[in-house]
């Protein structure tokens, strides 16, 4: 039996082809229309809140990111992806749990009232984040050649995980890892799936998430300046 397992490849565990997978993006966009607008507003709002940077803005940004985990987990993963790939259901529950945890953290985390980041850093963060969330959906369009396949933040899991990772920098490093675990595990799973399907362009998204999450584990927020 031991050598039997060695004979399996990743493709042996994949029960669907690229056509079926890529149509998930088209289907969810067709079914959601025109409510994708909510996701677009969320992206702009989170970017603006990252620029503002005060405690209320951080709370609000994290609550929106929590909603994104909930929406993409219950919608894309459990309703669309799960019927063709059982582990997607399990990940769907994990996304929902992540959303619930972030909601609690967003509501109750004791942030200082004022931001300790310089203004240029906040602008860079906010604009960079919006740009990342604006460009990432186009990779699914490039992969499929279909404009209806745009993979939006809060709708599809890969872009949601990618967008969530920079927002976790709002937490101190000692607790941040807790919220980076799921993006890391999901992105490894997604990379393996996309690699096996041969959808290389889409694989850029979880690949980027893995790099950002690894970097986020080592970045510390700037210490608040002592007024004295």
């Amino acid at each position: 039996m031991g050598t039997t397992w060695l004979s399996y490849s990743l493709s042996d565990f994949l029960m669907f082809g690229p056509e079926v997978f890529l149509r998930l993006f088209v289907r969810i966009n067709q079914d959601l229309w025109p409510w994708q607008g909510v996701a677009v507003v969320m992206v702009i709002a989170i970017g603006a809140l990252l620029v503002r940077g005060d405690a209320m803005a951080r709370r609000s940004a994290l609550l929106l990111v929590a909603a994104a985990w909930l929406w993409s987990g219950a919608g894309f993963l459990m309703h669309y992806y799960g019927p063709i790939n059982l582990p997607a259901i399990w990940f769907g529950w994990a996304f929902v749990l992540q959303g619930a945890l972030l909601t609690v953290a967003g509501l109750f985390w004791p942030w200082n009232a004022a931001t300790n980041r310089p203004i240029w850093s906040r602008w860079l963060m906010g604009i960079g984040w919006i740009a990342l969330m604006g460009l990432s959906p186009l990779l699914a369009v490039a992969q499929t050649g279909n404009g209806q396949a745009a993979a939006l933040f809060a709708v599809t899991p890969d872009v949601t995980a990618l967008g969530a990772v920079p927002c976790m920098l709002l937490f101190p490093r000692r607790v941040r890892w807790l919220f980076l675990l799921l993006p890391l595990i999901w992105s490894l799973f997604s990379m393996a799936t996309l690699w096996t399907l041969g959808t290389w362009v889409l694989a850029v998204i979880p690949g980027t998430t893995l790099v950002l999450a690894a970097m986020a584990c080592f970045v510390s927020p700037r210490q608040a300046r002592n007024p004295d």
Partner: protein
Amino acid sequence: MAHELTRRRFLAAMAAAGLSCRMPALMAAPKGDVMTNPIPSSGERVPAVGMGTWRTFNVGGDQYLIDQRTEVLKTFFDLGGTLVDCSPMYGSAAEVMGEALDTLNAREKLFSATKIWTGDGDATRQQDRESRRKWGIERFDLQQVHNLVAWQQHLATLQQMKADGDVRYIGITTSHGRRHGDFARIMETEPLDFVQLTYNVLDREAEDRLLPLARERGIAVIANRPFQGGRLFRRFQSEALPPWADEVGCRNWAEFFLKYILSHPAVTCAIPATTSVEHMKENMGALYGALPDEKQRRRMAAYVAGL
């Protein structure tokens, strides 16, 4: 409505004739009788080309793809196929098959084959019941133990189910050449109607022991992965068929690969899977015409190995 034969019409007719020679699978309807093989344990005959559903019918709730797969199944039935093989392992494939059968109202034509795939040796009947519900049938023609998972318990229950009339035939499966030693021991000791194993023009390990054993024991053989999950086409599609392909009854690579399998005397049926109506037509072409003899089979294997 008599038409005068003009130069233009003559050239058009010649062009159409030439085109039909270039695309025989598309232009020529299959001729002759459907090739069938007997199930040794009963003598019942089944068409030699069946249909697999691995990866192809797991489309979830995508109605566009469900309709498209229904067309593939319709083509399969229209061209003489009956045996469809599935597994609980294949995600939503069983539900999609049930919906397609509803649409086509084609359960009368169907030889239904599926598998028991659970490590819980006590769940055989429960999984059979669940699969029947998804397919919308009263009983399966063939129920197999998937990849020898918990095979002792499942096979014992399947034997009882067969005795009770809850399933017509029983069998075991493997793929990718795995566990052939265990597989052979079960074939030698257990009463089986069918075995399912990987056999194609490149994966020929089964020729050494399992196929002769199946003949000796009177067990029907279903060949899975006849195209190596599509790899044979990716590898050889750009190559020319041998100039003697028509001597072995082959008009395209699909027929070439399938007829190599079907011409083995132990093989009852091959189960290619496809998402394309055109590919289904090509596959079903192997149900018609001549089969290669032993000498020609060796030539076919050598040709592919030499490419």
